[in-house]
C-alpha cells in the first residue's frame, strides 16, 4: 500500500549533497514525490524536505539509509498534525471571453492571489497543502489552464524546537554516553 511520508533532513551545505541524496533514492528505487532544498538560519546547513512514497518498510529503510550519509546531520519525519506543510503553486488561467470576476472569486476562496494579469490570461499564486492546491486546480480547470508551475513541499514542525536544536541535543546525548550508534 502506497502512502506518503515527509522527511525533513538537515544536511551539510556543501556542493554535491543534493546528488548524494537524489542518487541514494534513485539507486535504491525509492520514489520521491518532491524534494526542496534551501539554506537554513545557520549557513553551515541546508534543509531538505523530501516527500517519499512507499510502505512502512520502505520508509524505515529511507530513514536509515539517509542517516548513513556522512553529510546528513539530522532527520525528522513531519506529519500534518504536528507540522506545517506547504507548497507554492502558480496557475496561469485563460481569460479570453471568460468571467474575470469568477476567477478572482475562486482564487479568494482558496486565499490565492492574482499576481499577473495579461491580455488573455491571469496568473494565480496559491500556497497550501497538496489537497488545497488540487482543489484550486480542479475549480480553475473549467476556465482552461494554460500552465502550472509548482514547488515541492516545505515543512516546519510546530512548537519551539528546531531541527538544528534537535541535532545538537542528539549529539550532546552521544557525548554524554546516553545514546550511541
Amino acid at each position, binding site marked *: 500500500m502506497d502512502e506518503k511520508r515527509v522527511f525533513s533532513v538537515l544536511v551539510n551545505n556543501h556542493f*554535491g549533497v543534493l*546528488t*548524494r541524496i537524489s*542518487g541514494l533514492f534513485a*539507486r535504491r528505487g525509492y520514489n520521491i514525490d518532491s524534494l526542496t532544498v534551501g539554506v537554513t538560519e545557520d549557513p553551515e546547513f541546508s534543509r531538505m524536505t523530501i516527500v517519499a512514497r512507499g510502505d512502512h*518498510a520502505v520508509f*524505515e*529503510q529511507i530513514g*536509515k*539509509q539517509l*542517516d*548513513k*550519509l*556522512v*553529510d546528513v546531520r539530522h532527520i525528522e519525519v513531519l506529519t500534518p498534525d504536528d507540522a506545517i506543510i506547504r507548497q507554492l503553486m502558480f496557475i496561469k488561467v485563460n481569460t479570453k471571453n471568460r468571467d474575470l470576476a469568477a476567477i478572482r472569486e475562486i482564487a479568494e476562496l482558496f486565499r490565492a492571489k492574482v499576481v499577473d494579469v495579461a491580455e488573455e490570461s491571469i496568473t494565480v499564486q496559491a500556497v497550501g497543502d497538496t489537497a488545497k492546491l488540487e482543489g484550486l486546480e480542479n475549480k480553475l480547470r473549467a476556465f482552461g489552464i494554460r500552465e502550472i508551475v509548482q514547488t515541492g513541499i516545505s515543512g516546519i514542525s510546530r512548537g519551539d524546537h528546531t531541527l538544528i536544536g534537535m541535532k545538537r541535543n542528539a549529539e550532546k546525548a552521544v557525548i554524554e*554516553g546516553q*545514546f*550511541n*550508534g
Partner: protein
Amino acid sequence: MKLSGAEIIIQCLKEQKVDTIFGFPGGAVIQIYDALFRDGTINHILTAHEQGASHAADGYARASGRVGVCLATSGPGATNLVTGIATAYMDSIPLVAITGNTPMNLLGKDSFQEVDILGITMPVTKHNYMVTDVAKLADTIREAFAIAASGRPGPVLVDIPKNITIEKTEYEYREPEPVTIPRSPATEEDWNRAAEMIRRAERPFIYAGGGITLGRAAKELAALVRKIDACLGLSLMAMDCMEKDDPHYTGMIGMHGSKASNMAMKNCDLLIVLGARFSDRVVGKTEGFHENKRILHIDIDPAEINKNVPTDHFIISHMKPALEELLKRVEEKKHPRWMGEIRELREKFPVSRAPQSKRPKELLDALTELTGGNALIATEVGQHQMWAAQFYGFRQPYSFLTSGGLGTMGYGTGAAIGACFARRDRQVVSVAGDGSFRMNCQELSTAVQNKLPLVILLMNNKTLGMVRQWQTLFYNGNYSATTLDYAIDWVKLAESFGAKGFRIGAQDDPRPVLKQALESGCPVLVDCDIPLDNKVFPMVPPGAALDELVLGDEA
C-alpha cells in the same frame, strides 16, 4: 611549518602510521609522487594497473585489520580504481583512495584526463571528498581515515586537484584519535530480551558473517556457540571464523552451503544473525524464510535491520562487545536432540560427497596439510572460490580474502600481494581460476619485483567454470562464451614475468610440487589441471528455497 599540499598528504599518511601504499603515478599526482620520493619513509608499491592497487590496498586491509591506502592519477587512473573500491564497499573494507584531478581552473571544462570521480564513486564509497582549499586538506584526510575505519567500515575517496598539491599552507602534526568502539544504544531491556530469546530456544542456529571477521570476534563467537549449544553456519565472509571439525559447526550457508547448515537455518526455532546481512546468496527465496522461527539480528549497521528479512528483535552493536554482553547474560544450555539431528545431517551429507569436486578437494586438502591450515588464502571468483571456502581447513580466523559482495574476478592476485605486505609472517596463497587470473595476471610482475613469497594455485579447468556449471544445469549445455581452450602456457607466462611456474597434472599427487612451491620463497604459479566439468555442490538452484538444494552426488 608551511608545507605544500603534496607534502601535507604524506605527513597525514604518516600521522595515521601508514607504512605501505599501493599506486600508480601520472600528471595529476606527480607532485604527490615527488613528495613521496623526497620523504622516503613510506613504502610505495607500484602495481601494474590501478585496479591491482585498489585490490592490494583491500587485501592489505583485510589481512592487517587496518585501513588500506591506494593512490592514482586523474581520469583513467581514477576510473581504474573503481572496481577495487566497489569490491571494498560491498564487503565493508576500510580503504582510503586518493586520486589526483586537473587543477581547479580546468575543472568542468572536459580538460585532459578530467573525470568526475566523485560522481562516479558516490554509490560505491562510504563517503567521498573533493578538496578545494589546501587549508582543509589535512583535516579531510584525517576525517577520511576516521570514516573508513569507524562503525561499519568502508572505502573513502579523496579527490585532490593538482593545484591543491602545489599550494602551501601551515601544517601541524596531529595525533589521530583512536578509533573507539562506540557503546551500543541497546538498553538493559534489549539485552535481556535477547538473552531471554536464547534461553527459550530449543533449536538455536547461529548464522554469522563478515561482521565477525571485521570485528575480530571469532573467539567470542566460539564461546557463545559452546555456551548455548547452538549449531553454527557461516557465510562466505566468515568462512575462516570456526575450524571445520568443530562439533558445533555445520558448514557454509547459502547457495553453495552444506545440507546441514541450510536445513538447520530452515528448521531452527531461533535464528541468531551476527554481523551478517541476509544477502540473496545466503537466504535464497525470502518468502517463507521467517516461518516457524524467531529472528534475533545483531549488527553494527541499523540499516541492515529489517532490510531483506524482518526481524523479531535486534541489537545495534559491534560484534565483540555484543558477544561479550550476551555471554554474561545467557546460561549454559544443552540441546542434545537438536544438535543430534543436525550432526546426523552433517555426517550423512558432507560437502565433500560430490564426486564432481573430488580433484579440487584433493588439491585443497594437500594445501591444508602442507600449510597446516595457517595460510592466508585469497581467491578469485568462481568455482575455485567456493571450493576454497568448502575445503581449505582454516586454523586461524581472518585469513580468507575473498570478494563476496561484488564477486570480482581479478581480485585475487592484487589482494594476495596486499596481504603479503600486511603479514610478512604468514604464507599467502591465492587460489585462482584461469579466467579470473587472466584478468589481472600482470600483477605477477608486482609480486616478482617485490620478491613476495606468493603462491598462486591456478585451478585450471580451461573454462569460466561457474558460468559453465549454470549453462550445464540450466541452459541445455549451450556453452556460450565460456570455453577457454586457449594456447596459453601458464608456466611460461609465469617465467616470462620472472616468477616460477610449476604444473600438476590431473592424476598427479599434488603434494611434492605444492611443497616445492611453498618452499620457494618467491612468486610461484602452480598450474593445476582440473577436469572441465567439475562442479560446485551442494547448490541451491536460483530462486529456490534453501532446503531445496541439489547435492550433486548422483553421478
